C-alpha cells in the first residue's frame, strides 16, 4: 500500500477528512522551507503538497507566483527541492509528499532521471499543472513503474464527457479544482462543491481532495464535510511572504496549519 493510500485509509478509519498543506520548496529559502515542511505533520497536515518553483506559473495567482519568485531568487532548483524531500523522508516515513509544479523543469531534467530521483527522495505523487492526460503518457510510464502517483485534476469544466479521460490512469487521489480560476482566488461555495464531488464520486473510486480558494479554518471545515481532503496553499505562502524573519515564517505557517487542522478535524 502506498503512503497516499495508507493515509486516506487511516483518515477514513478516523471518520474525518484530511488537510493537505501546500508550501513552496525554497520559500523563503531552502533551509527555512525544510523547517516549515518538517513541522507540518505535527501542526496537523495530513498530506504535504510541495511546490516546485517555476518562472512562469500560468495557473497560479499572485500569492503562489510571489512564493515561486522568492524561492527562485533564493536559489531554488528542482534538485534542491528533491533534496528537501529526502531530508524530510529520513525523519518521516508516513506523511505523503506530493510535488506540484509545471512540466518544463521536469522535461529539462529528463523524465526517467526525474522519476528515479523523485523515487529515491521519497516522493509519493506528482501534480503537474500543465500536463493534462493527453500529454502525460511519457511521464506516467516511468512514474507508474516507480510507484509514484500522477494526481489528475478535475475542474468545474470537466463535464461528464471529459471525466472518463481524466480518471483513466489516475491514481493516488483526484484533485478537484473547486473554481474556474487561478490559485488563491475567491472561495468556493461549499454547496456547489458538494454537488460536484458527489457527481465525480459516482465514477471515481479514488479519494477526492478539493483545493483553490480555501483560506480560513471555517472554509476548510465546510470543504471537509463534503470531500476527502481540503487543500490550502495561497493562504500559507502568504504567511511566508508576510514574515519578517525566517523564524517568523516557520511560526506563522505552522500556526495557520494548526488552526486549519482544527477546522478540518471538527467538521464532522
Amino acid at each position: 500500500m502506498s503512503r497516499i493510500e495508507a493515509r486516506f485509509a487511516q483518515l477514513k478509519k478516523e471518520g474525518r477528512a484530511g488537510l493537505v498543506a501546500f508550501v513552496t520548496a525554497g520559500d523563503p529559502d531552502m533551509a527555512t522551507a525544510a523547517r516549515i515542511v518538517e513541522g507540518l505533520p505535527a501542526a496537523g497536515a495530513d498530506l504535504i503538497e510541495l511546490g516546485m518553483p517555476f518562472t512562469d506559473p500560468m495557473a497560479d495567482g499572485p500569492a503562489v507566483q510571489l512564493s515561486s519568485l522568492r524561492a527562485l531568487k533564493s536559489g531554488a532548483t528542482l534538485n534542491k527541492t528533491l533534496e528537501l524531500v529526502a531530508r524530510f523522508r529520513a525523519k518521516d516515513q508516513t506523511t505523503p509528499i506530493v510535488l506540484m509544479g509545471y512540466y518544463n523543469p521536469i522535461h529539462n531534467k529528463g523524465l526517467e532521471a526525474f522519476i528515479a530521483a523523485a523515487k529515491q527522495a521519497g516522493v509519493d505523487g506528482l501534480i503537474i499543472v500543465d500536463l493534462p492526460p493527453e500529454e502525460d503518457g511519457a511521464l506516467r510510464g516511468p512514474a507508474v513503474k516507480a510507484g509514484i502517483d500522477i494526481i489528475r485534476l478535475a475542474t468545474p469544466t470537466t463535464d461528464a464527457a471529459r471525466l472518463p479521460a481524466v480518471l483513466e490512469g489516475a491514481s493516488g487521489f483526484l484533485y478537484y479544482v473547486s473554481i474556474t480560476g487561478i490559485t488563491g482566488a475567491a472561495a468556493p461555495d461549499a454547496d456547489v462543491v458538494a454537488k460536484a464531488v458527489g457527481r465525480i464520486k459516482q465514477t471515481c473510486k479514488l479519494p477526492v481532495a478539493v483545493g483553490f480558494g480555501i483560506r480560513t479554518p471555517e472554509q476548510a471545515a465546510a470543504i471537509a464535510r463534503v470531500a476527502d481532503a481540503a487543500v490550502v496553499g495561497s493562504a500559507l505562502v502568504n504567511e511566508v511572504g508576510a514574515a519578517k524573519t525566517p523564524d517568523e515564517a516557520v511560526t506563522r505557517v505552522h500556526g495557520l496549519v494548526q488552526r486549519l487542522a482544527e477546522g478540518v478535524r471538527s467538521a464532522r
Partner: protein
Amino acid sequence: MNVTQRPNSFRIGPDPTGHFGGYGGRYVAETLMPLILDLEKHYLAAKDDAAFQAELGGYLKHYVGRPSALYYAERLTQHLGGAKIYFKREELNHTGAHKINNCVGQILLAKRMGKTRIIAETGAGQHGVATATVAARFGFPCVIYMGEVDIERQKPNVFRMELLGAEVRAVKSGSRTLKDAMNEALRDWVTNVHDTYYIIGTAAGPHPYPMLVRDFQAVIGNEAKAQMQEAEGRLPDSLVACIGGGSNAIGLFHPFLDDPSVEIIGVEAAGHGIETGQHAASLSAGRPGVLHGNRTYLLQDDDGQITEAHSISAGLDYPGIGPEHAWLNDSGRVNYVSVTDKEALAAFQLCARLEGILPALEPSHALAHIMRDAPNRPRDHIMLMNMSGRGDKDVFTVADAMGSKL
C-alpha cells in the same frame, strides 16, 4: 537536438493530437482542456464551411484591404547589387501589420462559438491593436494584457488600443514583457472560461492555435505566390521573414513549403548578440521545452527555468517560438538565422531612405538579413521578404537608439 525524418510533405502538420513531429501539443491546465477541444471542433467545422470562408474573405477584402501589394524594391535592389528584392506589403493592411489577418479570422470564430468577451496578449502592441480593432468592429468588450516594459516602449499603440475601446491591463509579473502578458491572459481565460475567447496573436500556444493562426496567416503566402507568378512568371528563389512567435513567417512560408526550389529563411532576434546571452533567438540558442501550452524551443537555464529574452523589437522579445518552426528547423526545410538590434536599426534606416517605407523593427530584422545575403546572390535570384508591419509605432524606440530626443 531532435532528429526528424524527412516527411513526404511539409504541409500536413499538425497530427490529430496537435503535434508537429515532437513539437506542439496541448500542455494546458485541465480547466482549459475542454475549451481548446471545443475550439478545435468549431474551427475544423468553420474551415470547411463555405459561408464562414466567404464572410472571412469579405472582411479581408473590404475591411483589411487585401490583397496586400507585392512590391519590387528597386532602389534597395540596386543598392545591394545582387538579388532582386520584393516586399509583401503586409504593413499596408488596416492597423499596419499582418496581425489583423488572424484577428479577423478568430473574431469570426468567437462569434460563431457564441463567446461575448475577447482577451489577448500583446508584445509590440500590433496584435493588441488588431484585436482591439476587431473587437470594436464586432462590438465585443476587450481586455489586452501587455507587459509594463512593453507599455513603456510602445506608448502610441497603448493609446490606440484605448481609443478603440479596449482596456489595456499592465502586467507587472516576471520580465514584464510578452511572455508574462501571455501568462496573465491564460490566467484570465482560466477564470472566465464561460464567456471569453482568447485571441492568441502568434502561431504558438496549445493546439489548435498554432494551426489556426497559421491558416489565417497563410493568405500572405497564397497571395504572394499568385502575385509573383503574375510579376515574374515563376516562384521566388528565396523567402525571408522575421520570427518572434513566428506568425508572419509561417503565413508566408507555409504555401511554399513543398516547393523544393524555394529556399526559406527565418530571422530571429539576436538582441545584443547571441554570445551576450541577451537575445531572443530560441532556435539558435535555446533547447526544446514546454511553455504556454506547447513543446518548442525555449530560452531556459540549466534548471529548466525560462530566461528573459531581449530584443529592441518588442514583437520579437519572446523566449519561445511557434512549434511548427521548431519542427521545420529540425527537419531542415527552413534555415533559421539571427540578426542583432544594431543590424536591424541600420536596416530600418536604409529602408526608410531608399524605399520611403518605415518598416517596423520586427521586419527590419528580415531586411538586415537581406542586406547581408542579397549582395552574394545573382541578379536573377528573386528574394521575397514579408514586410510584416510598419514602423510608426517604433519611432520613439528608434529615436532613442539613435540618440535623438523627440
